[in-house]
């Protein structure tokens, strides 16, 4: 780790005021940022710890949506009665992230800001059609993930909350990387008023909707319909843990299991 300045503001305004250059980074749970610093892969001038900002915390139901503050930990989401009642698939997803230590520190805002191609939350953002709230605007989930570790966020724009519309039914299925726990492939299937959504993480450079499977499920919301779609391996991630073909095959398999879990 290189030396850096450390700030711990207690309000969002203070935090925003401190984030004046690209060399000053917000720090949330630190589960990605701290290892990066320890390996000397980043050299920020200062860190702005968001951990004491009350406005970023908490889970609440607002109309037809569940709104989760950016600073909410994975463990809090997994255990939340509100989330479990309205979108159990989201609570399950949070509970499948990493290990207890990671879930007790890592936050939804940090995860979504970081946009790791293998992170779990992106499948929910895309699959449930979430909205990202920032200190300056709102961004539709479908427009948010752009590429590998690349999002619609501007430099020093802060995520404040994520709101998830409550679906009629939803389920999340994941094949975890045995080493890291991240998703080799994760699939969120949701039946919503606007139709069936299938959000996929782990398989490509960033989370995406598997429209071919969505179409098949629109016609017949059954596991067989999902499994019947052969996803192309083109453009899928390939590494020592999973080939592109394997990932492509897993999307259909996991989508079919999620449909079954939705009662389809």
């Amino acid at each position, binding site marked *: 780790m290189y030396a850096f300045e450390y700030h711990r503001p207690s309000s969002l305004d203070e935090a925003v005021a401190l984030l004046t250059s690209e060399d000053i980074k917000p720090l949330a749970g630190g589960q990605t940022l701290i290892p990066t610093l320890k390996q000397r892969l980043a050299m920020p001038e200062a860190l702005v710890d968001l951990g004491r900002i009350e406005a970023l915390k908490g889970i609440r139901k607002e109309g037809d949506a569940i709104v989760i503050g950016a600073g909410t930990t994975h463990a809090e989401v997994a255990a939340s009665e509100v989330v479990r009642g309205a979108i159990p698939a989201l609570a399950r997803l949070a509970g499948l992230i990493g290990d207890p230590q990671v879930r007790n520190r890592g936050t939804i805002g940090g995860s979504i800001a970081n946009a790791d191609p293998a992170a779990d939350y992106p499948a929910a953002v895309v699959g449930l059609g979430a909205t990202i709230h920032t200190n300056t605007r709102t961004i539709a989930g479908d427009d948010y993930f752009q590429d590998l570790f690349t999002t619609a966020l501007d430099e020093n724009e802060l995520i404040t909350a994520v709101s998830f519309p409550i679906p009629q039914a939803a389920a999340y299925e994941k094949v975890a990387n045995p*080493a*890291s726990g991240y998703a080799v492939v994760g699939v969120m299937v949701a039946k919503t008023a606007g139709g069936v959504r299938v959000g996929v993480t782990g398989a490509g450079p960033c989370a995406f909707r598997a429209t071919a499977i969505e179409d098949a499920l629109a016609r017949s919301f059954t596991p067989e319909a999902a499994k019947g779609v052969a996803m192309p391996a083109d453009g899928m991630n390939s590494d020592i843990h*999973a080939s592109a073909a394997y990932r492509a*095959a897993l999307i259909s398999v996991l989508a079919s299991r999620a449909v079954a879990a939705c009662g389809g």
Partner: protein
Amino acid sequence: MNAPAKTVGTSVKRTEDARFLTGRGRYTDDINRPNQLHAAFVRSPHAHAALGEIDKPSAMDVPGVVAVFTGADMAADGVGGLPCGWQVIGKSGVPMKEPAHPPLAVGRVRHVGDTVAVVLADSRHAARDGAEALMIDYDPQPAVVHLADAGAAGAPQVHDEVDGNVCYDWEIGDQAATDEAFGKAAHVTRLELVNNRLIPNAIEPRAAVGEYDPADGSYTLTTTSQNPHVIRLLMCAFVLNLPEHKVRVVAPDVGGGFGSKIFHYAEEAVVTWAAAKVGRPIKWTAERSESFMTDCHGRDHVTTAELALDADGTFLGLRVKTLANMGAYLSTFASSVPTYLYATLLAGQYRTPAIHAEVKALFTHTTPVDAYRGAGRPEATYVLEKLVEKAARELKMDPAELRRKNFIQPDQFPYQTPVALAYDTGHYEASLDRALELSEYSSFAERRAASEAKGKLRGVGFSCYIEACGIAPSAVAGALGARAGLYEAAEVRFNPTGSVTVFTGSHSHGQGHETTFAQIVADRLGVPMANVEIVHGDTNRIPFGMGTYGSRSLAVGGSAIARAIDKIIDKGKKIAAHMLEAGEGDIEYKDGVFSVAGTDKSLTMGEIAFQAYVPHNFPHDKLEPGLDESAFYDPGNFTYPAGTYICEVEVDPETGHVHVDRFTAVDDFGTIINPMIVEGQVQGGIAQGLGQALLEGAVYSDDGQLVTGSYMDYAMPRAQHIPDYRFDFTCTPCTHNPLGAKGCGEAGAIGSPPAIINAIIDALGPLGVDDIPMPATPLAVWQAIQDAKGGTARAAE
């Protein structure tokens, strides 16, 4: 006075755990000396490069940096290379090649992580800043990484003086007899396999603190070692040329070794040497990424094996050809692992009359490979037990019955195998039968049907392993090329007021010696366990020690303690005879009490001990004061733990995920001192075997970068992977040591991988899959299924 209740055979709770679980362990990294410097090692980013200029000022300019040393500095001081402890003599008498292994590279770097320079600074961070700033001219060159390439014509040379990268080409067994056996075989089963390279991953990274005292010219090295005396011997005699009496090596609490902390590493020699150079203590603790790159790796074999059988399944002959990866340099034990600890085990539990094995060891531009839990024996067991299971499939015989048919029978011991070893005792059918029962093998078909109904595939796999532990009878070890005897030393000191201090050359780094050894001492001397202190890990306190590895601590180290106790009792009898005015021959000893046969005259051990230290009227010509005895125990043979492991897996054919549903282990470890500790050892061993079978595999890119250099990519077994174990023990006591004990530390890691892999192959059989590599990751299993289907999914890629 009643002697305390006997403890041997009972699950006494581990006395050392109180300190470990409350954060009071004393590890090397806990040590801080006044005025100490921190060392950071500069490591090669290239697998192979010529080493050009090292610009010391670039690091010296960093604030806090005090010194920078390179290989040239050590060479100028006459520092030697890190030695190898076993000489292997290859075919037609050609000795193995032992290229120089300087602690800091000279002229050339040979693997990613090779140690190039050391930067000493006032703080850890400054040292790391200095290491990062150090400018080094590398001229990268082509590297050879994989075994299949290392021996090929035109392959890059790891060492100029080692032609074709061949360290040795060795054989064992009777080739003519084996050929003849194959000539008359009704059936030959053939197998090609890879034993995957593993990275040890002890929870405590390696660390070392070097100190020099100019007052008396003495050195102290505190290090994370499984064998401090061996480190002192090697470092003094071969590397630093220091007199042993001026060097103290301490291995305090050590957080796991699994073999990786046996070896003498460069960093130990460098901090010791540099402490004298700069006149300040020097501390180094590895970062986890350094551990991945520089702790010796394990396994890494490529093997072809053939088993010749007659028509009814009797084994006639076994032929094995193995390539073994040594990595870039020959580590301390490396040469012995794929030879004496591997090929000598190929008889397994069977009466195979003719065996011939050839092993070619090759250098590559990778981290050195050496002993890792099991060391050679897991590789042998994997070859043999996969081969036997395949033969059973081909002959459509029950795999348990094919094994049973070929077992060495109880009345055939001692049994001389065709590959050097002579097994003293065993009862293989007893373990097999108990394991069959415990695993409910007879109802497997019902469970398979139940799995099928859920869309899953269930399989069962066997492994009947044997290992040679208690390394080693010095005569045998010497004949096999060991450059030292592998006995063990112990000193038992009765203190005047009745407590006992035991100094052992074994080293505990997770094994629980402080409990197990104390149980032996307490029972034999009739003192409470609380009065027994086990001291280990310090060359200044312990007479000598060969250390802990190869499941030798109880069988060899414990036996040394038992011998020293015998001497204490003999001396006690002399004292009792004198005190009780009886003939020495009339003194009987039992449970801590010396008595005169046929009388009610007796003295307790405590009274004897006290008298030994206040000997007002001892006859000086016959009886010395004091009660302190030591013994060096050299075992008469290896010990041969053996057992049967049965694994049941459930495979998800759509994702390739393997779930180990039940795992049955029946082991014969001879006499067991503490069943709880033994079960813990077996559990941990199986967890590591499961890691090898399902999760772990070091992956190098073709240019020699370690792809699995962190926990993001190197998968370790976690609690969630560990199955429902079913354990039991059978017992044929070891016939040649005073404890009847055989050793239990490695069995789990040795026996489990083939059981797991055999079970997966059994599960996938209906899909036409007939082999699966280790680690059987979801990808590997899924890919095997696709390949069996005819490559449809591949085509889509």
